[in-house]
């Protein structure tokens, strides 16, 4: 029997496979297809202080081996989450992590304080990397000073596990990772989507209402893998790797490059059962290679 347990800060996961924010709803949408409780954890949809309608349609464009989205953090706000969603997802025994977003530090702090009170939410993922909102979002995650400021502010009020989700739209992601580590983040997750664009020469119009959007899917995997490897060599805190993971092989590549856990995102849209298949595939790989635990395999990349 292989040991798939991993720790992210105080958070204990029964296996390293989580589902990425914005790609798995609140888990409930997947109940018809899988036993959500088999997952290491789920990161629920980005939640803000006030309700947000998100961006205008069209918000999505398919691209070769991927897709662009510009949803823009549509959600009904933290109070709706607490009164309407939280009671429904308490049935899950898997770890429930809330992705938190905002347009200013005060908003982030209010949401975080409210989440701090919820017994079944042992961790938050601080989203400082959403490319699809006008103010806040990615702006916090693209400079060391603002990333430091928001991490420090949240750390001072939030006592449970704090994960900071990093943007790949920066010159040097290791600098941002080191900064949030120094300000007390328990872990980093990377990467959020890459800023991209798609147009039509037939209509001469952009395919997204916002012109630009966030690119995800297998087309971003080599970039995500490179960034996980770089950050692994720069910080001591655990890394949660994501970006284009479509199968167990992809997931294992991220763990080999140093990720403690991984998130499955866009792949959930193609196969709603994929996250469970990935757990099975990781188990099979470890068994057939006689590796006792996933932590033994982590970061074991052979360079020469």
């Amino acid at each position, binding site marked *: 029997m292989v040991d798939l347990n991993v720790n992210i800060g105080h958070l204990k996961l029964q296996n390293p496979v989580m589902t990425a924010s914005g790609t798995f*709803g609140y888990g409930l*949408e997947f109940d*018809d297809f899988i036993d959500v409780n088999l997952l290491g954890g789920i990161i629920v949809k980005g939640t803000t202080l006030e309700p947000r309608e998100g961006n205008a*349609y069209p*918000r999505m464009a398919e691209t070769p081996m991927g*897709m662009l989205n510009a949803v823009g953090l549509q959600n009904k706000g933290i109070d709706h989450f607490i009164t309407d969603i939280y009671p429904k997802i308490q049935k899950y025994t898997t770890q429930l992590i809330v992705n938190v977003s905002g347009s200013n530090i005060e908003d982030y702090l209010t949401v975080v304080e409210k989440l701090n009170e919820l017994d079944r939410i042992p961790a938050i993922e601080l989203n400082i990397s959403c490319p699809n909102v006008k103010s806040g979002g990615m702006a916090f995650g693209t400079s060391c000073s603002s990333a430091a400021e928001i991490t420090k502010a949240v750390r001072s009020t939030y006592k449970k596990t704090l994960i900071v989700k990093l943007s790949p739209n920066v010159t040097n992601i290791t600098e941002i990772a080191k900064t949030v580590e120094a300000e007390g983040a328990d872990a980093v997750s990377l990467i959020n989507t890459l800023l991209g664009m798609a147009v039509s020469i037939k209509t001469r119009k952009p395919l997204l209402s916002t012109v630009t959007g966030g690119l995800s899917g297998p087309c971003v995997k080599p970039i995500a893998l490179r960034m996980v490897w770089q950050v692994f060599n720069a910080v001591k805190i655990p890394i949660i790797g994501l970006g284009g993971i479509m199968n167990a092989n992809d997931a294992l590549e991220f763990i080999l490059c140093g990720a403690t856990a991984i998130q499955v995102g866009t792949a959930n*849209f*193609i196969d709603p059962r994929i996250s469970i298949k990935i757990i099975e595939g990781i188990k099979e790989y470890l068994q057939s290679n006689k590796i006792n635990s996933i932590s033994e395999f982590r970061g074991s990349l052979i360079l020469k």
Partner: protein
Amino acid sequence: MHKKHIEDFIVLLNEKLNEDTFLLLLKHPHKLPEINAGQFAEVLVEDSPLTFLRRPLSIHDVDYKNNTLSLLIKKLGKGTKKLSELKPDNFLNLIFPLGNSFTLLNNEKVLLTGGGCGIAPLLYLSRKLNEKGCDVHILLAAKTASDIVRLKTYENYGKLYFTTEDNSLGEKGLIIQHSLFKNLSVFKKIYTCGPERMMQAVARLAANNEIPCEVSLENTMACGIGACLCCVTETKTGNKCVCVDGPVFNTKDLKW
């Protein structure tokens, strides 16, 4: 709402109906679960590296006795082109049945209007309405007569009318120029599916005559199950997902 399923169907038949339209008859390996009129499937296009996402397609007809369903598909891009190449005994993976459904009336006179590939969900709808004792009238619109497919099948469930832009079948012109629209008040409900401008024109005339009108929208989608929030349409109560809150909407709820 019904439980959603993911299943490999077996292709029984891929019938070319005209230059760019084809019909796929798909067999469920076991017992086909219940499907309502207006629901759709998210279809996986395999071995097609440039089409990454599933394709949301209306369920055209259902046969519980033979455990089959059919999809009426127009070749519009790389994904549907790949589907047009499927052969009998190939597998096709579907997530289904998705979305809400049309509201059915009992024993009433109803009008179904469709254009382009928007006629696809109207067949199963007309059959269901027929079973409910409705007096079903179906108006199909196209550029030219050869665009209109499956006439004989639609004819089983209602009285058929046509408009064509080149006057090759039925009345000449656009759908709302058909003479049926001069006396809309005889209908208790109008159902429409097709190009957005066509549906908006039908909805406007329905509203003018105070007749309830249901539309089936086909926004671009990623997940099809309400997780990604990509396929939203603006309603009077905010953005709603076409995949779970639709695809059928009462037009009075839309911001048209």
